[in-house]
Structure formats: structure tokens, C-alpha cells
């Protein structure tokens, strides 16, 4: 008894406090109990209806599969839609200014809070899955489905649920106004809708093709499954890192885990796909990797330009004294200029990798001939967004400081500038009588990054303009870069003032 008590006490101390709190709230709240009852009602009704219309001899031996898919669909809706929406709404309420103390005044780390939220939501999903299991067992007796398929689909569903919950947590972490929350809410409903339909459709297809016969095949089962699982977990990991960054205090080094994670994922995925290029003799997986990196870096640029420009004591304390170590830290630590440089560095490394592999492999590899075109598109995109981002920084630096506004949504300014730059040439073209829908109208779309896909013939012009745009705007922001890089230095040790000690400001002034 003593040992059991000791173990339970140990476990009690080990459990994430947020899991305990969230599960207690779930048990006492109406939402989870309501969903559970509704879910059981749906399952019982479905089984009842099936029993009522069942006639012996008319079965096509697919009854079990159809019933299973019905239950599984209901599970997906509950796990991928209702639970994540509940988590998102609850979290966004806690993020509200008057309740932030719940998240931020304890000694729990931001990672512990997010893991607690994720795990508690996942436990609730498993609870609903458990309620469904007896009905799913019955479907096995009704023929048309095997145990392996049931097992595989349950795992598949749980993986998707975990991703959706993490995505909902990420959206819930945005510290935005109620109007924006409504917008985000609508956005996530659309995303969840697509996800539910896609998951159910893909599961039906998987079930139709069967699992059991493919279990022994690397090419048709384990490889696609591994890629799928790795992709889902990478994406889930990114949402986790972003959520942690969003709820971390502004004074903390919020960007470090995100940038480090993305760099590691970039490195691992690049290495694995490089190996695939070598073994499978196909080049296109590496091109997909490069395109994905470009898209991520475009988002990275927009986020980076909105980051902090001056570092507080907490961050400066973490900056290493050794200037050699300081260079990679500048790229990885929170900070606008460092973020932009990190995005550009990763992009340059990606292009270098592509060209290096291209130079090493024979020309017969699938996708070999597409390299020039793909790299041109990648560069066009990154330079356009760098140009718009830097222009937004310039506009904000000139105008914002004179207004003294607290918010600095540089990414929003960049998007607004881009929209204006896209619309003005089109309006000029429209009023000058040009046919904007013709293939010759590409010149009116030169400020639109997306249009480079539609006018592939003129990609060189697009590339030249984007490079010129990015170079000019970056040069105009050189003082902005210089100031941040120069200030990226460690803080001298601080102690409370007394008669014998010198304050930080005093010592820094003396050093200056």
C-alpha cells in the first residue's frame, strides 16, 4: 500500500498542472459531456437503423466497412473539429489581457503550458475514441473490414487529431482583438472542414485499397507512411514551436526555438531527400524541398521584419562574449535584422545545395531539366518579398516613430504596400485600354510576385526587377541592419546599486 501510495504521489507531482486543470474543467463543463452523449446517441442510432433495415441475404459484404466509415467519420468530426475548436476558444479567452496572469505569472514554462493544453485535448479525443470502440468492434463482426485496417485507421485518425489540436492551439495563442479572433475562427472552421473531408476521403480510399496486403511493401506502404508521419509531426512540431513563441514573454528569446527547429528540420529533410535523390535516381524531391523552404522563408521574412529591434537585459544576458559564436546567435536569436539574415542565409544555402547536387548528378534524373526554372522562381519570390519587407521597414521607420504608435505590424505594412503596388499598374493598364487578360499584358503584372508563374517566359525580367527592388530597399535599410548588429552584444553583469558598486548605465557610459 505504501509503495502504491508513493508511486501515485510521484505521478501526481510529475503530471503537468495544466493537464489536471483542463481535465477537471472538461469533466465539470458541459461541452465534453455534451459531445460524448451526442456521439453515443449518433452511434446507437446508426446501429439501430442498420439493424432495422437489415435483411438476410441482401448484404454485399461491405456493411462492416460502411458502418465503420460512418463511425470513423463521426470520430474525425469530433476529434478534428469539435475538440480543437473548444481548445482554441478556451485558450484565446485565457490569452485575453485581463486573464493573462493564468498563463504568465507561474513558474511554468511556455512549453509546459502548450504541452499541457495539447495533452489534455488529446486525452479528451482518446476518451471519445474509447466510447466509439465497442461500436467499431461490432463492425468487424459485420464483415467488410479487417482488424489491421481498423487499427491503422484509428492511428491515422489520432495523428490527424493531434495535428489539428496543435493547429487550434497555435491559432488560439494569437493575442489579437475579438474581430481578428472571429476572422481566425472562420479561417480555422474552413481549414478544419477541408481537413475533415480530406481525412475521411483519404481513409475511404486507403480502406478500399486495403492495408493488409501492403504491409510487406516498403514502396507502397512503409515509405509513404513514413513520409506522411514525418510531415505531420514536422508540421505539428512547427505549430508547437510557434505556439510556445507566441505565449512566451516579449522579453524572452522567442525566435530561438522556432529558428533552431526550422533549421534542424531543413537540415534533416534536405539530407533525407538528398539520400532519396542518390538511391532512387530522381531529382524532383530535392526541388520540392527547395520550393517548400522558399515558401517558409517568405513567411519567415514577413514575421522577422515585425520582430523587436532593440534587445532587453534578459536577451542580452544570453549573448555570448565570443564574437565568433555571436554570428550564428545573431541569426538565431530574436531580432528583426537577425531574422531577415537567417531567412536569406537558409535560402542561399538551399540554392547552393540544389546547384551542388545538380552539378554532381547525371542529366537523366527525373526533374533534372527543371532546375533552372525552379531556382529562378524561388529567387524571384524571395527577392520580391525581401523588397516589399524592406520597403515596409523603411516606411515604418520614417512614419511610425513620428506618430509614436505602440504596435509595429511591419508585416501588415508590407502586405498593404504589396497590394498597392499590385493594383496601381493594373489600374494604369486598365485606364490606358490595355487588355489585362492577354498573354502580352505581363508588363502590368511585374510588381505581382504570384504572376511570375503565369508568365514563365518572362521569368528573367521578373527576376531582374525583383533583385533590383530588393537590393535598393535593403541598401536604404543598411543603417537599420548596422544598428541592430552593433547592439548585439552581451550585457555587463548587473547587481543592485550600493555605494561601492557602479550601475549598468554608468559602466556602459564609461565604456563608451
Amino acid at each position, binding site marked *: 500500500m505504501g509503495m502504491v501510495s508513493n508511486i501515485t504521489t510521484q505521478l501526481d507531482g510529475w503530471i503537468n*498542472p495544466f493537464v489536471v*486543470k483542463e481535465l477537471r474543467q472538461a469533466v*465539470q463543463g458541459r461541452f465534453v459531456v455534451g459531445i460524448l452523449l451526442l456521439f453515443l446517441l449518433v452511434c446507437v442510432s446508426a446501429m439501430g437503423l442498420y439493424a432495422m433495415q437489415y435483411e438476410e441475404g441482401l448484404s454485399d459484404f461491405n456493411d462492416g466497412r460502411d458502418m465503420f466509415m460512418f463511425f470513423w467519420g463521426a470520430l474525425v468530426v469530433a476529434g478534428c473539429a469539435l475538440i480543437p475548436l473548444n481548445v482554441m476558444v478556451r485558450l484565446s479567452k485565457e490569452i485575453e489581457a485581463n486573464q*493573462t496572469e493564468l498563463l504568465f*505569472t*507561474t*513558474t511554468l514554462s511556455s512549453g509546459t503550458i502548450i504541452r499541457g493544453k495539447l495533452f489534455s485535448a488529446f486525452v479528451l479525443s482518446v476518451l471519445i475514441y474509447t466510447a466509439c470502440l465497442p461500436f467499431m468492434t461490432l463492425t468487424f463482426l459485420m464483415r467488410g473490414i479487417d482488424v489491421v485496417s481498423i487499427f491503422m485507421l484509428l492511428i491515422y485518425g489520432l495523428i490527424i487529431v493531434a495535428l489539428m489540436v496543435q493547429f487550434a492551439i497555435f491559432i488560439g495563442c494569437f493575442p489579437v482583438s475579438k474581430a481578428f479572433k472571429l476572422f481566425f475562427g472562420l479561417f480555422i472552421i474552413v481549414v478544419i472542414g477541408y481537413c475533415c473531408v480530406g481525412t475521411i476521403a483519404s481513409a475511404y480510399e486507403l480502406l478500399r485499397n486495403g492495408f493488409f496486403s501492403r504491409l510487406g511493401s516498403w514502396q507502397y506502404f512503409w515509405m509513404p507512411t513514413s513520409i506522411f508521419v514525418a510531415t505531420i509531426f514536422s508540421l505539428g512540431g512547427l505549430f508547437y514551436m510557434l505556439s510556445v513563441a507566441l505565449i512566451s514573454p516579449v*522579453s524572452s528569446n522567442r525566435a530561438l526555438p522556432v529558428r533552431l527547429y526550422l533549421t534542424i528540420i531543413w537540415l534533416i529533410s534536405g539530407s533525407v531527400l538528398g539520400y532519396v535523390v542518390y538511391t532512387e535516381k530522381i531529382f524532383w524531391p530535392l526541388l520540392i524541398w527547395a520550393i517548400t523552404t522558399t515558401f517558409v522563408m517568405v513567411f519567415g521574412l514577413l514575421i522577422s521584419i515585425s520582430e523587436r529591434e532593440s534587445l532587453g*537585459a534578459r536577451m542580452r544576458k544570453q549573448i555570448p562574449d565570443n564574437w565568433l559564436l555571436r554570428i550564428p546567435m545573431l541569426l538565431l536569436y530574436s531580432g528583426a535584422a537577425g531574422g531577415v539574415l537567417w531567412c536569406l542565409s537558409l535560402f542561399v544555402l538551399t540554392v547552393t545545395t540544389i546547384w551542388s547536387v545538380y552539378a554532381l548528378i547525371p542529366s537523366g534524373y527525373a526533374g533534372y531539366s527543371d532546375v533552372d526554372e525552379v531556382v529562378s522562381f524561388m529567387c524571384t519570390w524571395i527577392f520580391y518579398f525581401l523588397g516589399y519587407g524592406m520597403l515596409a521597414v523603411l516606411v515604418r521607420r520614417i512614419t511610425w516613430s513620428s506618430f509614436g504608435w505602440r504596435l509595429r505590424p511591419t508585416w501588415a505594412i508590407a502586405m498593404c504596400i504589396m497590394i498597392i503596388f499590385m493594383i496601381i499598374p493594373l489600374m494604369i493598364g486598365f485606364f490606358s485600354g490595355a487588355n489585362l487578360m492577354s498573354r502580352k499584358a505581363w508588363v502590368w503584372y511585374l510588381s505581382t510576385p504570384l504572376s511570375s508563374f503565369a508568365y514563365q517566359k518572362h521569368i528573367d525580367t521578373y527576376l531582374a526587377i525583383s533583385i533590383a527592388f530588393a537590393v535598393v530597399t535593403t541598401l536604404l535599410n543598411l543603417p537599420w541592419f548596422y544598428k541592430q548588429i552593433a547592439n548585439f552584444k552581451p550585457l555587463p553583469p548587473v547587481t543592485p546599486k550600493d555605494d561601492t558598486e557602479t550601475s549598468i548605465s554608468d559602466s556602459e557610459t564609461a565604456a563608451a
Partner: protein
Amino acid sequence: MEVKIENLVKHYGKTEAVRDISFEFGAGDIFGFIGPNGAGKTTTIEVLATLIEPTSGDAFVDGVSVSENPEKTRKLIGYMPDSLPAHNDITVHEYIDFFARAYGVPPKERKQVIEAVEAFTNLTKIKDKFLKALSKGMKQRVSLARAMVYDPPILIMDEPAAGLDPRARIELRELLKVLSDQGKAVLISSHILTELAEICTGAVIIEQGQLLKAGTIEEIQNNDTPHRTISVIVLENLDSLHKTLLQTPRIEQIRIEGNQLLFETLSSEADIAQLLTMLVQKGFKIIEFRPVKANLEDIFMNITKGLVQ
């Protein structure tokens, strides 16, 4: 245990919420943090509670910088915000239990600690009620219990008496006195100056983000009045005393209020002692002769201008 705020500055864009504030308080102190709305009280408290980072300057809790080591200082500070979330699916006990877990109270001690805190804050009878069902006074108690559950040596309270009825205020005052006797350093931001004056050992007065006064109540009261108000009660001949004082140099604004006579003087303590001797020698039967100190409300009204940023 000592809390030091040194040259604290916090800017929000062009708005200077806090401008170069410095003060300190220690174990057993109850410091009132006074200022009109928008003076920078909550900003300073949020810096201390590690919720925001100062633009410059720093605060130190037991020598630990809140800017550099927020996680370390959080363990030393119990923060009581001015509002409590109104969950309808978590009870008082569960809420306090969550904070006990969050602050790492060991599982073996947790039950005892929570029960003790609930008893101390008089929450035992309502521990199974949901937070949403609580009155403002009860919520303040839960907030205090939450801040105390891991026994921090420093308590920071943002408007703890706001919205409380007179009985709840008196109970809160008693709780604070007990906490002070236990050696905790308490910083209270409040508008209710009469409440603060009775329990505070010191005060910090700020306006428009600038520090106007800081120190013990006595220091502030003494500093505030270069001229002293003296109250005299005599057994008889109050009118005669009035006439005598009118002829005495450096005595102003002589007035009779009920059975006492009040006057203002710029004289030193030695001169006042000499005046008392002279009055006794002249045969006045003096029952009481004492300086009247300005209360916190008077000081506040004297030194603030009601300006907001």
C-alpha cells in the same frame, strides 16, 4: 528579503508610462503604491511581476534582477492581479490546487498547504464553489490565496480593495497585518487612501510616471509639512491662550476647533519646546500639546495635481 526598484523607465511608443522611479521596501513592510489613474502604478507592478520588461532601469528582488531572471524572481513574488478569471467549470479548491502544482509545491505537502491557505483566507466553506459564483470580495480572497499558496516572501497586490464592501475591506486589512507580522514584504496599489493609511508602514506616491514621494509614512508626513500644526487642549482659559498665542512671534493661523486650539508654526522643535515651557510658566493648565500630522489623503492631495498621461 528586499525589493529595490532602480531608475525604472518604461515607454510605450512615445508614451512614458514610468519615468526614472526608484524606491525600496523590505520584509515586514506594507508599502502603499499611490497615484491617480494612469500614473504608472500597474506598469511598475507588472514589471515587478515579470509580466513586462522595462525600457531601462531594473528591479531587484533579493538581489535578483527581474529583467534578467524573471523565472527566478517569480518564485519569490506572489502577484495578486486586480481581477480573477470567472470560470464556471473550476472550483475554488481546484483553482488553488492548480497554482500549488504550477509553483511546484511538493505532492506530499500540497493538500496540507492548500487547506492551510484556505483556512487563512477563510475560503474553507466555499472551496467547492465555482469561481463564477463568487462575489468580488470572495474572488479577492481566492486571488490572495492563489498568491500565497507557495508562501512567497513578497506579495504584490494590484487594487486589492477595489470593489470590496466595508466588511471585506476590514477583513483584507487584518489579513495584510498578519502577513506583515509573518515577515512578508507587501506592495499594495490602491486608490483607497484611508485604508492604506491605517495599515501601510510606507508609501510611494507617483504621478504621470514620476515619483513624487517615497519612504515610511512618518518620513513622508514629516517631509510634506515644513510648517507644523500643533494642537493644544487646556483645562480652562482657552480664550486667554488664544490671545497669548496671537502675541507670540512665528505662530500663524490660530483657530479654535471644539475644545482644542490649533496653530501653525515654522519654528524648530527646540522653539516649540520653549513655547510649551512658556505657556506652563504663564499658568495654563495644559492637558495635551502635540503636533498634528497630515494624513495620507492630505499629503496625496497636496503633492499630486491630478494629471494623467
